[in-house]
């Protein structure tokens, strides 16, 4: 089946994508400020009482997950809409529900005082020891649920459009070309990645909706209880799949934009197809690596968690990292902010995989789980991976509107890259030295790491300020282009 030529992007759709990104620019900056506040508080350079620290921590966690999803959903929609007929109304409905959900989440946290961490680990929302009222927990849980409903609509629309165009999940993933000897051109990378994300996120959001609803009932009816181990499995299945899907949505920008800069199309090879199909299965089954220290979870799930964590690295390194390097290598590419950020994002993803895989080794997890090693690896592939993908996409839209890079842009790139890697390295060093994560107050032995990390965090925030302002100032020009 030869792939159809690209569809035009309607102006309303483009405005919707820009609205997603404008929200992303503001929220990313705000959430980074929250992150900086936490590192400053742990450094004892900022007086932030524990009650407020944990509120900020909760907002930072849920805010970053949600905005990573929104920003990368904009990437998916922008490029997928050229291939299949997506609904612009659903694009806007998702944004509206997102904003309603955010208001409820923020009210629950900063008015009601909810501080149950973004993972809302059952039964903590209902058992705060009097620190927050029932309505605060309910507002938070309901807010997250509403954001989830928005994304559910978004992915249902993607599923409708992809199936309408390709007929089946297998054809959209290129299985006839992979398994059936079909010599025709397989679907383009954006369709393959979008199909994987759509499928896995429909499942993850449903699991999330179940545990959010059960937790909501538990807040008001304490006699209604849920098995704590089942709740944990549901939460981590939802959380793991949902946050991983942001990388898979973000990488669409790499597949689409870098080839335009290098002049070399991204080749959809059989290893590429195999890698994405394997990812679809592995990302759904790997989440037990979050529960390796829950000894009562079945042992086969622990083993599966470790083995699949290792094998999940194969598509990242052997397909996307190698593919990116081959696409750029001696291509005559002239670096600019967009291509630089997207290239950096693949480096961030690949390097973040290393400490993540090590941590998923059961014998290592026993002495590293819930230390700073964990935020060390996920900040590497989220900050230097996903956020760099979103920023690269923003910069590319700006460049498409005929804006060149300035010296300030180039400086912001290097400050972001050096600050980001320095910031994550300090997390990993702290993890090596057993500093626990999610502690409002640190022991004196840990302060030197916190203070150096706070300096790197400040650098990242400064760079983000430049990127956000650059994008927001150029919005009108981009909408008109």
């Amino acid at each position, binding site marked *: 089946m030869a792939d159809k030529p690209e569809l035009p992007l309607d102006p309303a759709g483009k405005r919707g994508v820009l609205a997603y990104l404008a929200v992303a620019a503001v929220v990313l900056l705000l959430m980074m400020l929250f992150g900086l506040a936490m590192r400053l508080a742990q450094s004892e350079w900022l007086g932030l009482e*524990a009650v407020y620290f*944990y509120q900020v921590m909760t907002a930072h966690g849920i805010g970053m997950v949600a905005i990573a999803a929104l920003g990368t959903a904009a990437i998916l929609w922008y490029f997928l809409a050229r291939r299949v007929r997506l609904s612009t109304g659903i694009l806007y409905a998702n944004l509206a529900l997102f904003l309603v959900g955010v208001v409820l989440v923020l009210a629950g946290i900063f008015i009601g005082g909810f501080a149950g*961490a973004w*993972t809302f680990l059952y*039964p*903590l929302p209902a*058992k705060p*020891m009097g*620190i927050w009222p029932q309505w605060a927990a309910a507002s938070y849980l309901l807010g997250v649920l509403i954001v989830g409903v928005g994304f559910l609509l978004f992915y249902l629309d993607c599923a409708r459009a992809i199936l309408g165009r390709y007929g089946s999940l297998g054809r959209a993933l290129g299985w006839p070309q992979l398994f059936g000897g079909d010599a025709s051109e397989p679907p383009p990378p954006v369709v393959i990645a979008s199909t994987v994300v759509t499928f896995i996120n429909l499942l993850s959001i449903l699991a999330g909706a179940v545990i959010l609803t059960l937790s909501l009932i538990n807040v008001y009816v304490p006699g209604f209880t849920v098995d*704590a*181990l089942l709740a*944990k499995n549901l939460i981590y299945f939802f959380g793991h799949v949902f946050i991983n899907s942001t990388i898979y949505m973000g990488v669409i920008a790499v597949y689409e934009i870098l080839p335009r800069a290098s002049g070399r199309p991204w080749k959809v090879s059989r*290893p590429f197809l195999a890698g994405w199909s394997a990812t679809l299965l592995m990302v759904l089954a790997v989440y037990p690596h979050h529960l390796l*220290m*829950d*000894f*009562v979870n079945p*042992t086969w799930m*622990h*083993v599966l968690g*470790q083995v699949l964590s*290792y094998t999940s690295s*194969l598509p990242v390194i*052997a397909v996307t*990292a*190698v593919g990116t*390097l*081959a696409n*750029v*290598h*001696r*291509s*005559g*590419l002239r*670096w600019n902010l967009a291509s630089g950020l997207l290239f950096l994002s*693949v*480096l961030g993803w690949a*390097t973040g995989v*290393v*400490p993540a895989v*090590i*941590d998923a*080794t*059961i014998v290592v997890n*026993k*002495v*590293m*789980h*819930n230390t700073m*090693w964990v935020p060390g690896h996920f900040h590497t592939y989220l900050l230097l991976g996903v956020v760099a993908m979103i920023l690269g996409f923003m910069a590319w839209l700006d460049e498409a509107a005929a804006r060149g890079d300035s010296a300030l842009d180039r400086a912001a790139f290097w400050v972001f890259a050096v600050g980001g890697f320095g910031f994550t390295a300090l997390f*990993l*060093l702290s*993890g090596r*030295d*057993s500093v*626990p994560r*999610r*502690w409002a*107050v640190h*022991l004196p032995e840990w302060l030197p790491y916190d203070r150096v990390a706070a300096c790197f965090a400040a650098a990242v925030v400064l760079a983000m300020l430049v990127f956000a302002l650059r994008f927001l100032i150029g919005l009108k020009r981009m909408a008109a282009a």
Partner: protein
Amino acid sequence: MIHSLAWQVTVPLVLAFFAVFAWVALGAGDKADATAISQTSGRIRSWIFWVLVAVFLPIFGYTLRDLPYSVAAVAGGPPQVIKAIGHQWRWELSGTEVQVGKPVDFHITASDVNHGFGLYDPDLKLIAQAQAMPGYTNVLRHVFTRPGKYRVLCLEYCGLVHHGMLAEITASEAK
């Protein structure tokens, strides 16, 4: 120690990624035949895939031999048993004295919300842990190898005084 090993493995691998990406980035402005590069990258991809598979298999074989999830009977009598219950925000331990060289089974649970039982040695290094979950008991076996004051820290966020959940265990030589 495993902590240092994790760091020592991570750093060179990350630096190797940096080196390859920097080399490609610096040479990106040159022009070369795309077909030849595509063929070479295909061979490199296959090579990386099989090298990683060859590295992963012995790692699985070695690290999955001895998992912490079940405790077998020990020679020389029953192990010491300490019940550890996590409450918001304190640890309730049925004992705080242990003998060096003798297995200790920690029976870990929680009365209210999830907590994390993190056992830290006198140098403040995390040496073992298990989750404390309401309705379940995780059995963590540990053999203390040197005398001293050990600390139990909470490693699962449990609310306002999460960072204040500390307890002490003293390990002494057998008399």
